[in-house]
């Protein structure tokens, strides 16, 4: 097996020290940083697939994600050097009045695994904070989370504010227990993910289509 194959396996198994070592080994062997990055993302995709197939739990995925993060710390200087940057920036947060962060954190983790630049605004985020962050970071994607039915109106307000701002060119995606596809359509969101795992494909599809 090649170093990159081994690296992929180390990520999948969440063995962060081994993954870091193999990253360095690949760098030292002159493998291009983009190629190494691709291997990391592919490994995280595989973890995501297993997760979606109920073969692994979040804790295992979290460990893989931490291993990737450790590898990225090694890789980042080289990526910067070559001018390789994440494909795009995604802003994420739980809407105003809602404090639930687990679903939001899970999506953020999976987006990072797919190498999106993720700006996490936390919970109970007002519409204008979403707008400001989307402008500031030139976000291509904004993800809104809500777990309370009572905060669905806040979700609607936030989508409207984002769509009304001419300086923002972002797909707005929503998710959370009370959210349905029909609700997403009603409030003018661009996409809806029924669970965290599908949020990656959703965003990839939307950004490619854009």
């Amino acid at each position, binding site marked *: 097996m090649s170093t990159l194959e081994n690296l992929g396996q180390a990520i999948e198994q969440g063995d962060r020290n081994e993954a870091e070592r193999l990253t360095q080994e690949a760098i030292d062997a002159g493998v291009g940083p983009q190629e190494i990055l691709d291997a990391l993302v592919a490994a995280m995709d595989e973890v995501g697939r297993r997760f979606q197939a*109920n*073969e692994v*739990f*979040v*804790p295992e995925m*979290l460990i893989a994600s931490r291993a990737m993060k450790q590898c990225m710390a090694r890789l980042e200087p080289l990526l910067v050097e070559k001018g390789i940057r994440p494909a795009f920036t995604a802003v994420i947060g739980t809407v105003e*009045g809602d*404090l639930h*962060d*687990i679903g939001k*954190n*899970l999506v953020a983790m999976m987006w990072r695994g797919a190498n999106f630049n993720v700006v996490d605004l*936390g*919970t*109970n985020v007002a519409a204008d904070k979403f707008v400001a962050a989307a402008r500031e970071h030139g976000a291509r994607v904004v993800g809104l989370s809500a777990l309370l*039915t*009572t905060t*669905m*109106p*806040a979700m609607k307000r936030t989508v409207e504010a984002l769509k009304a701002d001419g300086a923002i060119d972002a797909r707005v995606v929503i998710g959370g227990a*009370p959210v349905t596809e029909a609700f997403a359509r009603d409030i003018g969101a661009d996409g809806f993910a029924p*669970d965290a795992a599908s949020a990656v494909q959703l965003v990839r599809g939307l950004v490619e289509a854009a």
Partner: protein
Amino acid sequence: MRFRQLAIDSPDNLLFGTAPRPLTTRRGMVIGGGTVYPEFNFTLPDIAIDEGSMPAVRRQYQQIIDDALRRAVELEPPGLVVEFEMLPPMTQQPRWGIEITAILAEALEQAHARHGLPSTLRITPNDTREFERPARMRHGPYWEGMRQAFDGAAAAGGELLSIESVGGKEIHDDALMAGDLPAAIFALCVLGTRDMRFLWSELADIAQARGVHCAGDTACGFGNTAMVLAEQKLVPRLFAAVIRAVTAVRSLVAHECGAVGPGKDCGYENPILKAITGMPMAGEGKTAACAHASPLGNIAAAMCDTWSNESVQNVKLLGGMAPTCYLEQLVYDCRLFNRAMDHGPSAATMLRNWLVESDSGLDPQAYILTPHSVVAVARAIVAAPDHYRAGVAAAATAIDLLREGHEAGCLRIHQRELPWLDRMQRSIEALPESESAFIEQMMGEVDTTRFNPAEYGL
């Protein structure tokens, strides 16, 4: 640790409708005195709550309670517990929560006066302190709003004080996602218990001043979050089962501070509290499917003293408004429990056993709630020297019970979960003996930017 021995020390004596220390309410209901009462829950449909919508919000609650009481009068339950679980804006603007409490209390008063329907009102303000991070737990406008909501709602007719408090949740959420049992014990038994002691001492003062009862708390944001994550296959069911056992240590603190029950509906740890305290407890299971799925649909009824539907929005179903439909289901469930009890404790215990057997073999979370498991976990808790050790002991006992149940063929565990038994056991065997050493260790591991230790008295 106030409770040093079990009020119910035999699994045989853990039974729905029956608590050694029953609670008598103003209108003469005796909760835990041989009757299971329906505990009716409801919430708004999807509408914003603000100054402009408050007239509509008031109308909603008035309609909900009027419609439900009309049906309750027809169905004649022996009594009715009504829970008003506020929505966060109603705790932040306490006068809204108090106003609606008054609407509900007045409706209950009229149903009692006109139709002789006994009832009591549980009021459950929100723990809004988490609206700022890191949270101020013991002062600031959020805490002030909570205090006012409790005090005002108690004055407006609320008889039972409850809350789903969240001290420690800022650490626990991450612990759940990471499957990190020591961090969960830190969140529940170090942070959570300290916050509960502060909070429930304050509530005890309010209850005394207003002549009402502290009922109890629930580790909803902890144990039920774990259960929901397990249902979504995000975390192992075994892990959620062990978390459930540990949550009892935290929820117990309400009763150490004077709460007399019934413990709150969504506290699936309630049977453990009942074994320890002898106080009546609420339960919710299949008839709370409107609020969430669970692997505990029947077993949750086995030891409850009130039986709740947790929460349902005021939307229309074919048969009428959803809250009233659910009230009807609760009343019939309770009729069955109470008819069995009419035939004596051994008949009732048969029904209890069928409720237990219904679920206990299929899911570790249910297995932890069999009377046998409940007493074992409760015993481990009261034998521990402090809350930290009680949490570790509860976890260790739960792991042992699950392992034994699996080996005896009484409990099915999914293959991919099995390694978690050893994994969890190793993680707690490595923990230090003293709480101070544990705190020092955990402060080096958890994300300390998320909370302010001083707010927890650390």
